């Protein structure tokens, strides 16, 4: 038995089962979500290349599979990151039923997660780019949705990812064949330019962010949250993979400076653009950019603890985005029963606001510990970065609190049982955001382990 093949085949089978059950969203979400969760736990805990005693005899799970000269490998170097992607996906897919997303989000979402997982397992890792492109193709279909309001977001996403793939493949070839180091200045500059474009697309750095506000306008919020969290996390892992593999990159002062500038610009622009948005979804798109800016500022320090914190922020971003999207998707709808109770109408609005506050890093939410850690680390050495982080946090938090919590609810066909389950689920999301804000020790020590295999970055 072969672990990478088993993981990908199971993801495919579960995705197909979820697709067949797409008419029953609860079942489809559970198949995909629980399946992704089990795959995440399997990749984290499976004993590789060692015989396992079972009822039918000894069973050995191989850690790698070679096909046409390329290897898919699950080892101690990547099992934490593969598991991170599956568990983040599981968290989002399990809750999909409560957000009334695109019907095929659970199935296609699992396919997309499998592509990203394959990109983390492929060796040489530079061939991750085409697999991420395939993930973006699935993401494009999800963003456009069943009855496209606008196809602009999907088309832009795929265009940017195609350009990124070309840049990253050429970067890989140059690094492998030309022996590029910091001493070979011209070649290093070329590599850096291609790499910068490729990673800027994957990390959603302006000007390659334009698909995000377009998706906020034309796509379902929960689907957008899923696509953003999975694709952006994969970009972060790819960047860390590059830094881990090439000493001249992770020791370059120039790279550090450019990451810092990219972070400052992304944080400032994200905050300014977010403040100017009247609509919640577009606000969130830009608030997410500001969050990405903070991540880039952390990465610019090129230190182990900062890489870990950047990953932890990616995890808390998934929580914040999911709760915001759940609340946002349920804000405009209500059953006949819930119309009678003002309290039940307030839960979706509360979830949307708390999820948004978590993404902007407000105190008492899941996003705050990461933002606070970034402020403590950066503020000491970089006054500009510290000031920007504080201003962004204050300005964006006030903007969220200004949102109109009331909404004109429209009646939808929904059984009382489903409505109650959905309300309970939303309340659970709200409590989760607050609990993770109050007790970061519940998740952060686990989240930072996602970079465990990057031995050169985190010894």
């Amino acid at each position, binding site marked *: 038995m072969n672990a990478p093949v088993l993981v990908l085949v199971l993801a495919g089978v579960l995705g197909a089962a979820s697709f067949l059950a797409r008419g029953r969203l609860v079942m489809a979400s559970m198949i995909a979500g629980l399946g992704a969760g089990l795959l995440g736990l399997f990749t984290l805990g499976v004993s590789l290349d060692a015989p396992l005693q079972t009822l039918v005899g000894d069973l050995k799970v191989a850690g790698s599979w070679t*096909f*046409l*000269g*390329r290897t898919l490998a699950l080892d101690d170097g990547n099992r934490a990151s593969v598991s991170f992607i599956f568990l983040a996906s599981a968290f989002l897919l399990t809750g999909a039923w409560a957000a009334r997303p695109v019907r095929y989000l659970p199935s296609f979402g699992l396919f997309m997660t499998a592509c990203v997982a394959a990109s983390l397992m492929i060796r040489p890792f530079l*061939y991750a780019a*085409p*697999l991420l*492109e*395939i993930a973006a*193709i699935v993401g*494009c*279909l999800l963003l*456009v949705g*069943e*009855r*496209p309001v606008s*196809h*602009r977001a*999907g*088309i832009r996403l*795929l*265009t940017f990812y*195609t*350009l990124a*793939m*070309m840049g990253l*493949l*050429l970067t890989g*070839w140059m690094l492998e*064949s030309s022996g590029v180091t910091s001493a070979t200045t011209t070649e290093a500059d*070329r590599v850096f330019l291609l790499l910068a474009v490729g990673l800027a697309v994957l990390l959603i750095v302006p000007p390659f962010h334009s698909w995000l506000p377009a998706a906020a306008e034309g796509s379902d919020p929960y689907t957008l949250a899923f696509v953003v969290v999975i694709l952006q996390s994969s970009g972060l892992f790819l960047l860390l993979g590059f830094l881990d593999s090439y000493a001249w990159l992770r020791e370059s002062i120039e790279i550090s400076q450019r990451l810092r500038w990219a972070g400052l610009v992304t944080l400032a622009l994200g905050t300014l653009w977010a403040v100017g948005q009247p609509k919640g979804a577009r606000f969130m798109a830009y608030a997410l950019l500001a969050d990405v800016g903070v991540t880039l500022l952390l990465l610019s320090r090129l230190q182990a603890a900062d890489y870990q914190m950047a990953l932890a922020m990616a995890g808390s971003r998934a929580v914040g985005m999911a709760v915001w999207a759940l609340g946002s998707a349920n804000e405009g709808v209500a059953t006949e029963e819930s119309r009678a109770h003002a309290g039940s109408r307030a839960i979706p609005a509360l979830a949307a606001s708390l999820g948004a506050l978590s993404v902007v890093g407000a105190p008492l939410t899941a996003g705050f510990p990461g933002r606070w850690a970034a402020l403590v680390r950066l503020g000491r050495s970089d006054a500009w970065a510290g000031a920007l982080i504080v201003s962004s946090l204050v300005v964006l938090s006030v903007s969220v609190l200004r949102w109109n919590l009331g909404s004109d609810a429209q009646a939808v066909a929904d059984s009382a049982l489903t409505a109650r389950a959905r309300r309970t689920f939303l309340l659970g999301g709200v409590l989760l955001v607050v609990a993770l804000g109050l007790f970061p020790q519940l998740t952060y020590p686990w989240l930072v382990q996602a970079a465990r295999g990057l031995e050169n970055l985190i010894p």
Partner: protein
Amino acid sequence: MDVVLILGVVSGLTIVVAIALVVVDDHRLALVFYLLEYLCVGGLLYIGGFPAAAWTRWGLAVAAAPIVWLTVVRLGRDVLPYAAGLRGGRWFRLSAALLVAVGGMGFSSSLSGIFPGLTPAHARAASALFTLGLLQLGLSEDPLRWIFALTTCLLGFEVVYAIIEPSLAIQAILASIHLGILVVGTDIAVRRAAPQNPDDLPA
């Protein structure tokens, strides 16, 4: 036969076809030029000594033809006016395409300096295809035009990449990306044109 001369001719033909693809309004005619683009790129790679990459492109042309043709037929004249997806008049697009192609070809000399094994003919075709694809991306957000534009960019890239990295695995993945873009683009085109409201359906 002089291989360099043949490569030059095929490279020139590729550039002319790519320019024509930018200029034409008619989706059916655009499809013909689009398929010719695949054939020309396949020819360039075949003559350059990369038959696997060439056959992959020709295979893609065979797969792309029915997918795009069926979409164009399904959309029909009433739903999608031919010139709807393109900005600017035909003369504007021709002049822009010529400018971009000349600019791209100027860049080709440095391209063949960076990548060993890339002949000037390959470099000219690659840079012209890539830049003309980018021009088309800027001219239209119509899903069908977007397919033509993005895959033109990708073909330009592949002329270079197939030469520097002729691995069969990567060729297969790149081919699947072409098909993915084709399927997604045509799916968006069809769904966008479908009536949004049941009341819009004909009686």
